[in-house]
């Protein structure tokens, strides 16, 4: 996938309905259920049916950058929006983009995407949830380890209309680390290629935590010069 180089401002691109987005060549990403065997809870493993996990099968992803910030536009079908937690059994919709935090130089340095990374191979996820005002910057080193940082440079805007979610993430290409010894964010640069993955949580299907639809493999993303 290519993140096109553009001159639009952040305000323009953050609008999920911004007409420029359709001009970019996106990529339809296939999503699959997260494997039950990898769920970090015996309870979840024992009580869920993998066939019913990962309701969203496909997401259209487009990317762009303006030299300072990078933008992702995601679009997927969802007949039932779940915005607020109005009842105990209501779960919000959600989406995230995943990146290895450390540069990937080969198979050994590639964090396992289906295990949310592992020790010394951390992953960074930009997360959006329909019930929360702000996006979150999270990082993990394996199943069940996801943490989030207090500070977050990610912005997200979303819209649900006629059965379609549209979501835009924006972030500066580089961000300051809270803890330089233990980086929590991916650092991007123009012309560079990084690995990326996508997750979608369909709230009406009871999806939360590791119960989600995800791109089973890393995709390359190049920030066009």
């Amino acid at each position, binding site marked *: 996938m290519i993140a096109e180089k553009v001159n639009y401002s952040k305000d323009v691109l953050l609008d999920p309905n911004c007409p420029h987005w359709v001009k970019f060549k996106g990529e339809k990403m296939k999503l699959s259920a997260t*494997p039950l*065997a*990898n*769920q*970090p*809870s*015996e*309870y*979840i493993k*024992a*009580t869920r049916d993998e066939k019913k996990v990962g309701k969203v099968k496909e997401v259209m992803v487009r990317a762009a950058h303006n030299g300072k910030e990078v933008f992702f536009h995601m679009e997927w079908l969802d007949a039932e929006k779940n915005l607020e*937690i*109005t*009842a*105990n*059994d209501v*779960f919000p919709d959600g989406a995230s983009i995943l990146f290895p935090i450390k540069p990937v130089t080969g198979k050994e340095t590639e964090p396992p995407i289906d*295990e949310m990374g592992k020790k010394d191979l951390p992953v960074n996820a930009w997360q959006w949830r329909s*019930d929360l005002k702000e996006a979150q910057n999270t990082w993990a080193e394996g*199943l*069940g*380890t*996801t*943490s989030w940082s207090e500070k977050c440079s990610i912005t997200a805007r979303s819209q649900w209309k006629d059965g379609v979610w549209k979501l835009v993430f924006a972030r500066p290409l580089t961000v300051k680390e809270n803890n330089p010894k233990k980086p929590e964010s991916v650092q991007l640069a123009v012309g560079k290629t990084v690995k990326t993955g996508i997750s979608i949580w369909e709230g009406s299907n009871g999806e*939360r*935590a*590791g119960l989600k639809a995800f791109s089973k493999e890393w995709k390359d993303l190049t920030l066009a010069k």
Partner: protein
Amino acid sequence: MAEKAKTAEEIAKEKRQKELAKELQATKERLRYSKRQIASVVDLNKCIGCQTCSIACKTLWTDDEGRDYMWWNTVNTQPGSGTPKDWEKMGGGYKVRFEGKVREPIKGKLPTRDEFGEAWKFNYEEVHKGSSQTTYLKPIGKEPEWGMNWDEDQGGGVFPNAFYFYLPRICNHCTYPTCLDACPRNAIYKRQEDGIVVVDEKRCKGYRFCIEACPYKKIYFNRKDVLGQKCIFCYPRIEKGVAPACARQCPARVRWVGWLDDVQGPVHKLVKKWKVALPLHPEYGTEPNVFYVPPLAPPRLDTTGKIDILKPRIPLRYLEYLFGPEAGKALTTLKAEMAKRRNGQPSELTEILIAKDWKGMFKPFDKDPLSLTWTRGKKG
């Protein structure tokens, strides 16, 4: 079933999954581990259903928005539907197999807010500025259909052989907490020093698997802060040697608190030595650390209205349903010791249950909070 030949990839994957399972097991075992276990005994023969425990807990911990509907401590009339409504039919917990060695999680239901009952707000203003013609005091919004103590004093049986008793419940701080097991974020752990089960409110993301998994339905969902919250066994008090509010504030003196392994302590004696204190629904497989002295009741009346002293009013099978197969034995022990006392003989068991020295019910957590110089900013 015949096996197909596996590809190398499949074999690797299977191997990795086994590794992950083992890792998970080790993680959970670590979170579940505690050096000592704090425990509580509740005497249902002394409980009068006054809910002072519920209020004591409420004003201390759950009086704010988001928590306002929660009752970490509940008291319900048994038999009854309880809190949340029909919680005993909601599943969760473990199927225990292979001589108690294997605990297999059972799917549980996520109770609804209506099943718990809302924190009703009332139309005071409307009443104060209205008249008998226009209004009366009632909850604002939807007419409630259930609450924490909705079926109070209703019970079971047929007049004159009705029966009921009160059952206070808090989180059982189980030895095998299904909630801990269920949490995909490893946000639930037993405190190593006392075995109190807590939800780390910084890690919790409000996914609610724990609420599903807990067979006692003692975890509440905080909609405002998107958190699972529950009884913390008043750990800030425990740390200072002060018994939990529900126990220390119980005017009927029904609750003992102490180390389960303290052989001199009343908790150990009631649970392990005299075996009159039993876990609630032991078949749920979580090994609760709150134990109950099952209730006695006046005998039944026969068809002429005569007292039939041989017929117990509460069917034993009901008590066995609640407290397991040991219920009958516990009652026999209790009755025998009470009979001894009636005949003027001493009994260690009744002496413990009388609890002449109230503070002794909580040893070593018998400190008076007034003795702490703990005002804000000055921790002592």
